[in-house]
């Protein structure tokens, strides 16, 4: 062993003082992990030298979980058990997931209004659990590369993430056994990666971060002053990205090849893949040869730019809004940082450059820049750089409020308020002797309850009976540095204090998380037994269905009454066995039913052959 202990230069000086901390970019399409080593932040590669971990998780038959490119490869063959883009489902209700993502191959179950679950062959899983598998994989990669346990991590989230989504991200991290120092907005991380905080010569510098990923767009304006980053405003579109570029090109391909309106899924998929290839090729070429099936054609940069024009314009409108929200003039913006693979498209760079009137920064790989920034911040929060004065001040991306009379929303904390923040609002009763009040917490910018996102609903009880308007109910909103909200309510006019703390829905409660961690640590035997039981129950259903449909078809013609009775008896025995919690009992009952039905199966086959032949002329069989 001693022979292998050769330390790297620079590492040997004080190895125990350096605390291992990493930054994780938990992305919709790909995820990355980065760390500061020998004073430099870099993303960490897996054993095959790959830095990007596809955010895909596959659940295998033996209960094993596969993450990354291996899982991604199964997307074509085992869609239902292979979960991609789980980030889109984090902190969402089933209904929202469906409207957001359109047609999805997954079967969602919503259990008692809590976290939605996706059905897979190894049981139901939540988006939180799927994400935690990705995080676990990156944790393992980091610990084996860095050679030790991680003391803390910084995980990035889109600036647009609301409270429930942030909560869900944090839950996923806890489930993966990670200590989260901080959730960091992705654009902020990108600014850190560019070391814009190191430029101490400029005071009051304003930076724009333009982040166009595969499926999301974010823009943020940050102000930097003497080592302090301050988020001035954030904006964007959670359903706009490079995939939409592919989609536009695909539509063009279908049109040009005369196959517009086709419902052929294979063709549509081929068009998307070709669209993506053409888009990427056009980053370097002025035109590219494209094909779809037998059709072949040419796509020029000019035509391509025209196809994506409306989408690019949409992103610039969000930029305009962010500038106004920050209450600054556009000319004050000193730097524009490009993030996300889609910013490789030259036309995007050109239009962004024109809008901000300066060439955007593109030196760091736009796929890695967020993870690198998170890595730098993690290193800092771990205390590895005691003399650094970098500090990130964040704002909440969406307003927080309460439902008031008539289904309207009263804002308690406006969006872009610097966090952490605590704010109280007073309400009163509107009926005499009213002893309870519903507190409905919402997030969003709209006026009405339905148009905003419901985060939590709870009742404050035990209000002493008073005339209407006399009670004073103080509702306090508290948002921490990660942007996570707690709400307290109390009646204060009589000194009677009742307070309730709520956590938003669609995150997991502490109890649930503990339960999941314990369940995953307990020996796998029980899991295997559970799976066997579920499988046997599915088999039982199949047998029962087959029998029922057969008997419905021809029991009267093929079976005598005692025979029918015999089969129905075996049927009810299987039904009873199915509800037991023992796979062997179920399997045995299936066997019994099959045995009892043997003569019936044989008789049906005979009768089917006779029927098949009786309706035909001899000549037909000759041809």
């Amino acid at each position, binding site marked *: 062993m001693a022979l292998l202990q050769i330390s790297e230069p620079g590492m040997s000086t004080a190895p125990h003082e350096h*605390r291992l901390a990493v930054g994780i970019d938990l992305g919709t399409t790909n995820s990355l992990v980065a760390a500061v080593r020998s004073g430099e932040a870099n993303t960490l590669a897996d054993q095959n030298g790959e830095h990007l971990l596809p955010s895909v998780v596959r659940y295998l038959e033996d209960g094993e979980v596969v993450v990354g490119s291996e899982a991604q490869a199964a997307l074509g063959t085992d869609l239902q058990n292979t979960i991609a883009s789980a980030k889109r489902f984090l902190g969402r209700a089933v209904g929202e997931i469906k409207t957001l993502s359109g047609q999805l191959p997954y079967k969602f179950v919503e259990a008692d209004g809590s976290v939605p679950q996706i059905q897979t062959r190894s049981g139901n899983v939540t988006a939180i659990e799927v994400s935690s598998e990705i995080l676990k994989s990156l944790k393992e990669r980091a610990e084996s590369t860095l050679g030790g346990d991680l*003391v*803390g991590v910084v995980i990035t989230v889109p600036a647009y993430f609301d409270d429930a989504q942030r909560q869900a991200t944090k839950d996923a991290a806890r489930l993966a056994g990670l200590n989260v*120092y*901080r959730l960091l907005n992705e654009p902020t991380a990108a600014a850190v990666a560019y070391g814009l905080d190191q430029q101490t010569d400029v005071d009051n510098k304003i930076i724009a971060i333009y982040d166009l990923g595969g499926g999301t767009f974010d823009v943020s304006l940050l102000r930097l*002053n*003497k*080592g*302090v980053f*301050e988020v001035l405003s954030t904006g964007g579109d959670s359903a706009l990205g490079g995939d939409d570029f592919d989609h536009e090109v695909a539509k063009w391909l279908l049109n040009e090849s005369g196959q517009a309106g086709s419902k052929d899924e294979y063709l549509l998929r081929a068009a998307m893949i070709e669209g993506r290839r053409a888009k990427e090729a056009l980053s370097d070429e002025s035109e590219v040869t494209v094909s779809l099936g037998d059709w072949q054609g040419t796509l020029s940069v000019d035509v391509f730019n025209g196809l994506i024009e409306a989408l690019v*314009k*949409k992103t610039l*409108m969000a930029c*305009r*809004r962010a500038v*106004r929200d920050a209450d600054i003039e556009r000319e004050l913006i000193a730097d524009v940082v490009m993030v996300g693979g889609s910013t490789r498209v030259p036309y995007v760079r050109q239009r962004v450059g024109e809008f901000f009137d300066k060439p955007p920064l593109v030196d760091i790989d736009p796929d890695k820049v967020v993870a690198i920034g998170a890595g730098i911040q993690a290193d800092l*929060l*771990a*205390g590895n750089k005691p003399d650094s*004065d970098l*500090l*990130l*001040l964040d704002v909440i991306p969406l307003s927080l409020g309460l439902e008031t009379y008539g289904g309207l929303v009263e804002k308690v904390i406006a969006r872009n*308020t*610097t*966090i*952490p*923040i*605590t*704010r109280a609002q007073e309400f009163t009763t509107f009926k005499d002797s009213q002893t309870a009040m519903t507190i409905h917490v919402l997030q969003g910018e709209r006026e009405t309850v339905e148009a905003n996102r419901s985060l939590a609903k709870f009742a404050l009880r035990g209000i002493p009976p008073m005339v209407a308007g006399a009670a004073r109910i103080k509702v306090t909103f*508290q948002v*921490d*540095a990660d942007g996570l909200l707690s709400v307290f309510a109390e009646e204060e006019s009589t000194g009677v204090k009742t307070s309730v703390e709520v956590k938003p829905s669609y995150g997991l409660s502490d109890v649930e998380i503990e339960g999941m961690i314990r369940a995953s640590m307990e020996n796998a035997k029980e899991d295997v037994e559970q799976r066997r039981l579920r499988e046997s129950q599915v088999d039982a259903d199949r047998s029962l269905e087959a029998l029922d449909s057969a008997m419905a078809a021809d029991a009267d013609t093929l079976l005598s009454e005692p025979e029918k009775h015999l089969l129905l008896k075996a049927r009810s025995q299987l039904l009873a066995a199915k509800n037991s919690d023992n796979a062997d009992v179920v399997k045995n009952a299936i066997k019994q039913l099959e045995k009892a039905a043997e003569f019936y199966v044989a008789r049906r086959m005979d009768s089917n052959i006779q029927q098949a032949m009786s309706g035909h002329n001899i000549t037909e069989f000759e041809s």
Partner: protein
Amino acid sequence: MSIDFKQSYFELFGLPQQYVVDEGQLASAFRELQATHHPDRFAADSDEDRRIAQQATSFINTAQETLKSPRLRARYLLSLAAVSFDDERDTTSDMMFLMSQMERREQLEQVTNAADPFEAIDEISRDVKKDYKDLQGAFVTSYESDDLEEAKQVVLKLKFFERLMGEIKQLEEKLEDDV
């Protein structure tokens, strides 16, 4: 390291207790306080330390937001002078003022019909901002001559302007969405 939650927001930032605030000084005092008290400074410390940091930064953030906002700052100055506000009932009865507010709203309704809606709304926005500034001057005059009742009236009017500016902003966003 906690802070004194009883001190006034002006004391917190080392600013004189008056309406006109040196924004640069407020900004740098704010950042200095954040640099010392922000929970990130205690990321690797105990939950207790982080909770204290959270409370301190909340206080700092509220203070900064109050002093930065023209209306909240005016209102805060009056509350330090024991002038109370009742958000449910207090409103201005200045008919001329209410009329001019209504005219502004009518102008806003016409924006979507304008040849260039963005230019039309920019123009309204400029006018409204100028009136808003003038009103702040009126506050200083009343406050400094100790006419606190009149000063309170100005604060109530400022609220109307905030609502109007909010509507302008919403309309701008709607115009952008329609592009």
